């Protein structure tokens, strides 16, 4: 658990840097978060994913899966891996200020 100042606002984040409270997130914070995990710059394609995740989270209350982003968001899995290499669900959730998507047993 750590506090961090992003875009001039103090937010709470977990050990891995995921937001404790997704409501703390603002669009201005995204470029900085992306840089932390090696994604720079954020393109319009990245934003399409981030916005879909935020919207879907608002409705469903959970971070959408890769399959959901394909089925509901119209974002192909191939594109997702190109935009957020090695683990798109985690990386996109990180930048979108959402909690870590829970894996399954």
């Amino acid at each position, binding site marked *: 658990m750590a506090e961090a100042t992003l875009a001039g606002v103090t937010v709470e984040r977990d050990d891995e840097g995921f937001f404790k409270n997704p409501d703390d997130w603002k669009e201005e914070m995204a470029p900085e978060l992306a840089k932390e995990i090696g994604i720079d710059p954020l393109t319009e394609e990245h934003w399409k994913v981030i916005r879909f995740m935020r919207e879907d989270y608002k409705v469903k209350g959970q971070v959408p899966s890769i399959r959901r982003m394909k089925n509901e968001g119209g974002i192909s899995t191939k594109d997702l*891996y190109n935009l957020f290499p090695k*683990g798109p669900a985690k990386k996109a959730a990180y930048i979108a200020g959402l909690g870590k998507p*829970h*894996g*399954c*047993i």
Partner: protein
Amino acid sequence: MKQLLIVGGGTAGTMMANKLAPVLDDSEWHITLIDEHETHYYQPGFLFIPWGIYNKNDVIKPKRDFYPSGIDVIISPIEIIEPDENRVKLADGRVISYDLMIVATGSRINPGETEGMLGDKWHKNIFDFYTIEGATNLRNFIKYWEGGKLVVNVVEMPIKCPVAPLEFAFLADWYFTEQGIRDKVEIEYVTPLPGAFTKPIAAKFLGEFLTKKNIKLTSDFSAGRVDAENNKLYSWDEEAIDYDLLVTIPTNMGAEVIGRSGMGDDLNFIPTDHHTLQSKKWENVFVLGDATDLPSSKAGSVAHFEADVLFENIQRYIDGRPLKPAFDGHANCYIESGFGKGILIDFNYDVEPLPGKFPLPGVGPFSLLQETRMNHWGKMTFRWVYWNLLLKGAELPIEAQMTMAGKKRV
């Protein structure tokens, strides 16, 4: 007369029918069970078929032998479930209405989700072992295989019985050693998880087993497509892994009828309360076994522990009492490790698999997170327990909720 409808007559649905039939007041409630198939498969036995330990006849019995008397059984595919209307439409047009429904439609493999998997090479040098056809075809291949590179791949999580692919790799090491060709067989275990298993202590323990058995572990690999022509498995990141024999655990999904009926998530698993097993959307719908979207293992043992909780909650629902949030994600899995030995793990939503003794603290006879011969015998005896006790809804000497007694924090 009120109608309790059970959709699905596999492990979970059969157990529930057997538990409820004797206790519901038959002047008030009538039980109907719908399933589209006549044959019950002992699915844990599929693992043993490729090695010739079990054959087809060891894992098959008629479903009807296990349903209780006094219930109606309908053998038919379902066209659609309409939970807003409290009714189910069968493929032949018949309509079955219900007051209370238990959905136990399970999970199955869907190899078509991965590009290139279903083609000329399917069941030629690419096999699953989660179906009777896959397991028996793989047996015929392995029987005459002279060696090469075996890749065991989990395409994506969640899967039914998450330890089965590891067991498959362990048994491969054993089998090819017995055949005298282990030096001609390279084994690679390829998983999307960060390690051999999800939870850290078990992942480390089982990872060490892979090393000990000279099985290469490739983790964080999300399989994207198969180039069957050239025997290559590709990740979404375009990393390639060569194989001569690919044993895949394809994407697992809930029943198609769940998708058609708009009841499921993107994998057709039904959003379900983690502790009461009530549907999150319809209060007169409960979900049991692999059909749920719970973050627990998809396994017969989990369905069994859930059934104990659901048995009580169905009665509470009927009597107008608040539901008990009693399911804790309890799972109990024997892991066959080859050479007549096995490992046992016992865990729930919050407590990862830990070492210790089971079921009697300090005594056993089974050992948790350790490899013993007794654990192997537990696994082999389980087939009898399954057919004779578990399916019939009999009490087993294991509590539905996981206990810390007998476990050691490490």
